[in-house]
């Protein structure tokens, strides 16, 4: 008896696993970026993009980066594996924990649940684009001040999500902050400092 199975043995299909599977075989154009070039490429290939690597350009933290990816590659894997942009972290890899959060045209998005080819033509901002250790943004400064991090593996996702949140919600109440950061998870237990940090950043008190 021989069997084919996934690495865990768990019988589960995530949305992202589904996307990857589709990308590997017969990527439907409907799932892809509306960029005309891609449509033209797909049209020339019987409506299929890939499965081989194609050249794409991603605008990351204000810089155009050219790379080759298979259409099934997620934005997160493209950033981390192809471009060495490792601020966004791979944790759950299925849109639960938020550690991979980036801003796409200013909106927070789980980069594990978006294909790299979908991100073409859009402005991608990762945690590295929000500040540097020497010049942190308000949220990053507040995270340091209130010690809103321990191991720090969830921190880039939280900082990115929180930055988008405070831009939209100045003077947010603690309840609003809890809702706003509900899409991210921390294991070390840094929520107490985080609540203070985001409240401070929302008030510009950093």
């Amino acid at each position: 008896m021989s069997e084919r199975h996934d690495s865990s043995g768990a019988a589960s299909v995530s949305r992202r696993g589904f996307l990857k599977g589709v990308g590997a075989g017969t990527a439907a154009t409907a799932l892809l970026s509306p960029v005309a070039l891609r449509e033209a490429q797909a049209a020339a290939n019987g409506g299929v993009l890939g499965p081989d690597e194609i050249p794409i350009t991603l605008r990351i933290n204000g810089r155009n980066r050219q790379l080759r990816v298979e259409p099934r590659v997620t934005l997160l894997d493209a950033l981390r594996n192809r471009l060495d942009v490792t601020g966004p972290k791979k944790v759950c890899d299925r849109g639960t924990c938020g550690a991979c959060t980036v801003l796409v045209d200013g909106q927070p998005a789980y980069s594990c649940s978006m294909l790299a080819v979908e991100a073409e033509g859009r402005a991608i901002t990762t945690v590295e684009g929000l500040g540097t250790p020497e010049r942190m943004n308000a949220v990053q400064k507040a995270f340091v001040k209130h010690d809103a991090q321990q191991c720090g593996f969830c921190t880039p996702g939280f900082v990115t999500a929180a930055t988008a949140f405070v831009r939209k919600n100045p003077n947010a109440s603690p309840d609003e902050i809890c809702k706003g950061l509900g899409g991210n998870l921390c294991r070390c237990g840094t929520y107490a400092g985080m609540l203070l940090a985001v409240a401070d950043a929302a008030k510009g008190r950093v």
Partner: protein
Amino acid sequence: MAKVDWPAAEQRSIIGKRIDRADGSVKATGAAKYSFDINRPAMLWAKVLSSPHARAEVVSIDTAAAEKMPGVKGVWKDDAIVGKEVLYVGQIVAAIAAETEEAATEAIHHVKVEYKPLQHQVRDADPALFQGDPAKRENGNVDEALGKADLVHTGYYGVPVITHCCLEPHGQVAELRDGELYVWPSTQSVFGYGDRGLADAAGVPQNKIHVDCQYMGAGFGSKFNPGKWGVISAALAKTSGRPVKLMLDRDLELAIAGNRPSGFAKIKVGATKDGNITAFDCEVWGTAGMSGGPPDLMPYVFDKMPDQRRTVKRIATNRGPSAAWRAPRHPQNCYLTMSALADTAAALKMDELEFFLKNIELTKRPEFDAPKVYTEELKLAAEMIGWKNKAHLRGAGGPGPVKSGLGLSLHTWGGQGHGSECDVTISPDGSVEAKIATQDLGVGTRTCIAMVVAETLGLPHEVVKVQIGKNEFPRSGGSGGSTTIGGISVSSRRAATDALNEVLAKVAPRLGAEPDALEAKEGVIRVAADPKKKITWKNACGMLGVTAVTKRGVNVPGDSAKANLTSAGVGGVQMADVSVDVETGVVTLNELVAVQDCGLVINVKLAESQVFGGMIMGITSALYEEAVYDAKTGRMLNADMEFYRLAGIKDVGKLKVHMMTTPDYEKRGVIGLGEPPVISPAAAIGNAVANACGVRVPNLPLTPDRVLAALSQKGGVV
């Protein structure tokens, strides 16, 4: 000469203060490179294949088709397992290294493994599953003592297996270069990581392993050793001749990379009618996978009643192996014991706090004056949570469907510093550097080393360059059992003191005083009795000529304990305030307060963070966490982060922390803090839920279905 003893509070300028973590800005900006983030030139990606069966004979492993897949550069298979049995779902049997992560993921599915499935067993909640002779221990005569008791409470309680769920998974990058193995692992034991298994897999002597772990995404007890995945990546680096990154995917991480043993218990507590505990009898069972057993520290903390008995049954299961989980054994024992004691108080119609205080002499232990510490802490915690105004007898949680309740718990831990060595170098230009082969799991180790050295030398902490995370530095223990802070603070204190004394000897003649009369404070070296006689730090170091001073400080735990630099044994108390909706079964944590002792606190800010973190992990285990196994397939059903649920920011309620930092506590030296605060939350919350809704919800986590089931046994809504 400068002395190594910890300075008293009024003489300190850095130790005991609230100082931001040194690497906060690096982490908050994504600049910190974790092991998972290391990308080496020409690096391959490895993916593993694991058993889908909880128990099966492996007939054959065929990698031929996978080897022909595009991009595949390395193959590993477990030849030793062929003809033998895999013992749990997720046991790794093969691995592929390929040019890209996608290629490796695809190729691994083309490895063909033939299994002959065998009968498996993954259940752990029924003591009848135990075979053999249980481990028994009895002091006094328990049956007689229970017979004489005014009241005997009999209860059942349970804590399931939970996992570590480190956000950075287990794994490493491995690279063989010029006959030496370079590894970048996610580990909590930098010095001990380069072990024999890794050396053999790479075909290098053990002293040719270079370990580098600057930032790691938590371990909680599960990341001391390379593990099978580490060994495989080293083997693949050897066969492929390329660097290899192998990090576990989340499903496998949850199923096999760390399991905390379960603990279930039937408990009898005998008491007098005025509330003195007279006897304790328990039967405990649970699983730690194929080997090891359930917690066996029963009764917990209140363990000095003369008549006590425990019977322990270790249930073997075809589940992933267990790993030390923050405060090994304590949280389970704590929950089982504190639940039974609170139920005894309720049966006696006594206030829980009054009952615990009444029996506080049962907590006596040799390391510290536990009854005194717990009494002080209970009183403080009660004030913080408003016990006096809010407390009520069990079941009197208010008239509406949402009932309120309070609960409490006590815990203890050792936490003496481990063996540690540190080199401190003072250079003629005045710069200072400390090197230790330790690791920072996110607790602030880097920061604390800088603070201790800076305090010793009278300098600002920012000027001390701290180098950790490499096994080429002086030896230091793994970060387990809350032993790091005691170890590294003593070794760095000793090294800095010895190095300073060399500088003092050089400058003493210039200041016209004996070295003994000098002190290093506020960036100068000065005569203690005549502070105007001074020399700046920089000029003092200039007198070293061209030779830097390097001194090695060593923490020998026994010696340091005698000198009160670090010691073992702390007490902590936590109290919870919950609301329980008896119509929906939903438990809401309103507030959790923690009062904690850990000797001399190096950095109060980071210490509080540790306690907050422990509380939140404990809350998560109380309300959400359980590794759910399917008896039929033997699989973990929730090996993902949707259904293996962690508490989010909205779930944790209001948290308050108080650290005991008076001279009485500080005089015991530096004691570790990682474990203690995670022990009590589940017990305190469980007791609060029972207090609110009038019935004990015996099994963690306290999910709505369990709350409703417990209420229905009592006869529905109260």
